[in-house]
């Protein structure tokens, strides 16, 4: 059953949670590098500042694309938390990123172009694994609806360990963390000026940032699904996964786009497909 109030809660609360997570991320990163680091609320200060800045419009169509990016990220997250169809969620999520790429392409800037191309490569890299995750959940719970997967008493992680590991791999791409922060990056990292966000300034960049917060909360929610049978374990898993991502971010240097594409497909193939194959075989022998 679709829970509209959950969707509403997501729309209202996600920016606060996402911003706070980003703040903790920056603080922890600084500590790992032996620095004091910015205040916890720094991401909110950043966005507050960006909203006060002048908006330089490179092409008027940028507005439309970036607004669509934000709207579709919010729609996909809201659909997810309302318990909607996982495939529709993934579709809206991909569409949102296509709008970001179009926004970057709409300005005639070589930096923005390279960023857009790399964002497309990243989409190609992570998309199969995300769809495989949804398929894996379907194979176990016999439903694509998030509310049914949430309500399932089966420990999904035990059925889908490979899919989960593959998902962690693409999560690094999605959270824009090293070694896969090709198109644009967090913190003070630079990537061919600033990759896909080069030509967005002021309030427009603030919108990209807020969309990214929504996106992060949605992705952490996706991890929850693997552990949905026990909420305390799920929350612990989310925390551990995020800490691991921060550690990985600070440990590795940036990979090339070829390595990113190859490795994510190989991992998706190895972990995801083999896991699904085993699951399919087992379900033929012993019905789940």
């Amino acid at each position, binding site marked *: 059953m679709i829970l509209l109030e959950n969707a509403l809660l997501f729309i209202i609360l996600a920016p606060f949670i996402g911003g706070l997570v980003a703040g903790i991320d920056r603080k922890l990163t*600084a500590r790992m590098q032996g620095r004091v680091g910015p*205040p916890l609320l720094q991401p909110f200060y950043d966005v507050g*500042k960006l909203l006060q*800045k*002048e908006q*330089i419009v490179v092409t008027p169509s940028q507005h439309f694309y970036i607004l669509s990016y934000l709207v579709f990220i919010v729609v996909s997250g809201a659909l997810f938390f309302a318990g909607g169809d996982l495939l529709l969620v993934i579709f809206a999520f991909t569409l949102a990123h296509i709008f970001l790429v179009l926004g970057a392409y709409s300005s005639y800037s070589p930096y923005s172009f390279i960023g857009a191309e790399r964002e497309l490569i990243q989409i190609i890299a992570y998309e199969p694994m995300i769809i495989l995750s949804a398929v894996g959940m379907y194979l176990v719970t016999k439903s694509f609806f998030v509310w049914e997967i949430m309500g399932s008493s089966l420990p999904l992680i035990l059925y889908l360990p490979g899919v989960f590991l593959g998902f962690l791999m693409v999560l690094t791409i999605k959270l824009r963390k090293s070694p896969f922060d090709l198109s644009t990056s967090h*913190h003070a990292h630079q990537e061919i000026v*600033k990759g896909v966000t080069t030509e967005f300034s002021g309030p427009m960049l603030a919108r990209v940032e807020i969309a990214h917060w929504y996106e992060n909360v949605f992705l952490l929610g996706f991890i929850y699904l693997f552990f949905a049978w026990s909420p305390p374990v799920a929350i612990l898993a989310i925390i551990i996964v995020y800490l691991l991502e921060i550690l990985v971010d600070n440990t590795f240097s940036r990979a090339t786009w070829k390595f990113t594409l190859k490795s994510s497909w190989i991992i998706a193939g190895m972990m995801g497909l083999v896991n699904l194959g085993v699951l399919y075989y087992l379900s033929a022998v012993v019905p789940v």
Partner: protein
Amino acid sequence: MSTLSKSPWILHYDASSCNGCDIEVLACLSPLYDVERFGIINTGNPKHADVLVITGGVNEQNREVIKNLYHQMPDPKVVVAVGICASSGGVFRECYNIVGGIDCLIPVDVYVPGCAARPESIIDGIVKALSILEEKKEKMALPVRVASGGEQ
């Protein structure tokens, strides 16, 4: 104090510096000084920057570059001239190829003297620039600027 001065993003440009001041600017980002404590981030993109930190004096080669960078930054913005060369041209002032300090080209808000400027004084200069940033914000009539290709 609004969020404006809590999150100054810096664009660092080496005009014709000997690299002495640049090393000191980058030292501010190191764990010893850690300017991210003040929310300061070194961006490589003028369109994301609030503070333009320039080292070295203006010469004929970088004249257009400095102007271009300055105009690409969204308002409100401040300019910090780091080191004596950026402030006045320093010992190179009389050279045939040097135009002078940064202020002969674009308005400078804070001058940080020194050869090379020490990281402490650079941080001090940037923190001073933040209050000017707030003042500029209050005077600013907002907001949308349509960038044109030939704007110089």
